[in-house]
């Protein structure tokens, strides 16, 4: 601790204080300070780790299907049996009378955990497909759509907000009205409308060609409908930043539009962009699940967490695991991202009020 006991706390004594603690005053960048705050937030880091574990597990879907479960995500095993603790078990029960008692047919086998040597860990569905394999492949698709749409959405919103905020005038007017217009539609309904219209023939305009079953459709639909939710607050921040002296100084030094936008304005909103990005992934995974649940998102036979829940809906009484397990996967992923996003916001700017509306 400080050995000086002077009450005259000038800059010199502060330097002396630092020297006493074993070093000169070092300049710390805001990013370093934020990282130090985040590093102490064990809850946020723990949930980040959970998210990373989920992503890695989904990435390992292929090897898992191949080496552990021994079946692909769309292979059906109706009428087949497997060995459980030395006994033969039907994947989907045939039903009928066995030994005088009636058994209902068409009921898939429940979660086996490790009793069947890695087969049917989370049971089978009504087609005799392995739920655990489909869960991982579905997770991969949900994460692709969620993270992909978050990237596209954030990027477009950022560029539009920078252009609108920097140039102002009629450019700003056009971009702001564009945001208002998408904002006027209800998010899910617009996504359903676009998703359904695009699932008929795909998209073939402006030299871009997307087939109707492609994952690009939900990805682009979700990024489009959510652009104003990031673009509007970012534009607001840039409008207030561009009146600051440092922008005037940069312009006076002869910096052009691109330079001011990307090396003066961007670093000042980078922390908000980062927080928005974490929170919008969570939001997009939920939107994808809702869209796919209604049939306007990821198209069969491609699984996603939303389509898996939709498949399990009609079997909620006889085979509840079909709907419950993918739902738990969604809740854990989204919760992890929301808690990490909150922690990130607290670390980057404790006073900021960044929020994703939905």
């Amino acid at each position, binding site marked *: 601790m400080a050995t000086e006991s002077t009450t005259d706390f000038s800059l010199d004594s502060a330097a002396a204080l630092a020297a006493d603690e074993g070093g000169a005053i070092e300049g710390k960048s805001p990013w370093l300070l934020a990282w130090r705050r985040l590093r102490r937030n064990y809850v946020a880091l723990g949930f980040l780790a959970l998210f990373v574990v989920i992503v890695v597990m989904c990435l390992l879907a292929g090897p898992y299907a191949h080496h552990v479960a021994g079946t692909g995500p769309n292979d059906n095993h109706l009428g087949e049996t497997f060995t459980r603790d030395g006994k033969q078990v039907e994947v989907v029960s045939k039903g009928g009378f066995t030994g005088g008692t009636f058994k209902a047919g068409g009921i898939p086998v429940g979660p086996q955990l490790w009793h069947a040597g890695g087969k049917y860990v989370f049971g089978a569905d009504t087609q005799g497909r392995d739920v655990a394999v489909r869960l991982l492949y579905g997770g991969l698709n949900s994460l692709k759509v969620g993270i992909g749409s978050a990237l596209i959405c954030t990027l477009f919103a950022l560029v539009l907000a920078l252009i609108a905020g920097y140039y102002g005038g009629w450019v700003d007017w056009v971009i702001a009205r564009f945001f208002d217009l998408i904002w006027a539609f*209800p998010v899910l309904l617009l996504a359903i409308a676009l998703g359904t219209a695009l699932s008929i023939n795909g998209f073939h*305009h402006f030299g871009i060609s997307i087939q109707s079953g492609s994952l690009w459709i939900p990805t682009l639909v979700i990024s489009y409908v959510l652009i104003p939710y990031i673009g509007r607050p970012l534009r607001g921040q840039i409008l207030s930043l561009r009146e600051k002296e440092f922008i005037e100084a940069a312009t006076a030094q002869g910096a052009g539009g691109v330079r001011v936008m990307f090396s003066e304005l961007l670093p000042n909103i980078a922390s908000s962009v980062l927080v928005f990005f974490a929170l919008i992934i969570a939001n997009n995974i939920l939107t994808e699940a809702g869209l796919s649940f209604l049939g306007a998102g990821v198209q069969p036979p491609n699984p996603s967490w939303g389509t898996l829940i939709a498949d399990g*809906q009609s079997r909620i009484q006889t085979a509840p695991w079909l*709907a419950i397990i993918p739902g738990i996967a969604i809740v854990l992923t989204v919760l992890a991202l929301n808690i990490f996003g909150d922690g990130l916001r607290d670390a980057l700017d404790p006073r900021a009020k960044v929020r994703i509306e939905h």
Partner: protein
Amino acid sequence: MLAFLVRRLVGAFLVLVAVSFITYLIFVKIPGGDPAPRIAGRLATDQNIADIRQKLHLNDPFYSQYWAMMQSLFTGSLKSYSSQLNVVQEIKRGIPATLSLTIGAGIIWLGFGILVGVISAVTAGRLSDRVITVLALIGISMPVFWLGLISRYLFAEGHPLSFLPDGEYVGLTVNPWQWFVHLLMPWTVLAVLFIGFYGRVLRSNVLDTINEDYVRTAKAKGLPPRRVLVKHVLRNSLIPIVTLFGLDFAAVIGGSAILTETVFNLRGVGQYAADSVQSLDLPPIMGVTIYATFFIVLFSVVVDLLYAWLDPRIRPT
């Protein structure tokens, strides 16, 4: 105030024109190719297709196509091509269920949200405060349709902890008690997502307001703490909640309510659109999209006016 109202209405009208034009682009232009067989759906006959081509003026330039589409929407002649039912009438049939669901859920989430927010602000930093924060995060992280499925599995008729009827909508005028009992679970499921969130927003508003000078004055002149809380703190902290509620209520009609109606089979407007997704039957989706967006745009005008009335500081002169 009148100028404000007029300006707001003109703005809303322009938004509606643009919204309807975008809807036209989505349903007629984006998919490319000949839209007539597509609008007609999978089960259409050649006669249907010829009818549509003629009715929607598909051989004419785009502005008369757009005008024809708007006419068919607002004269109520738009028909679903998989069921041949009139879209406007089907939407009207769904309105009572949708409004019952959203208004009931809105009352629950606003009421409990305020209760929870006040409790967590008064006990800030203590256990109940932290529990509410955790519940709010879990609430916004759950897919509403999944929560609905799970509650049906656990609590509805024929299920393990059965004590409520399973889905379906009973008209308020048909049987008020059955209406209430059938909607209790959908209301709760839809509201749970918002209670924790509103609690958190109100909590931070209350904590901000408590430090205002007029609250100190009220305490200094010796008002009982309860009166300070209700008359001075809460009254001012609730104003932003009213705007938030207006926006969320409108958003729910075109969002979470669709999923809730579908899971509980309430046969509302949202489910009508969702059911048409499977058959790629576009007219119902087009009708619901445009009517819901119109409703939301006009509703936001009402919210703005209400906000101006509640808070004289932002009232335009």
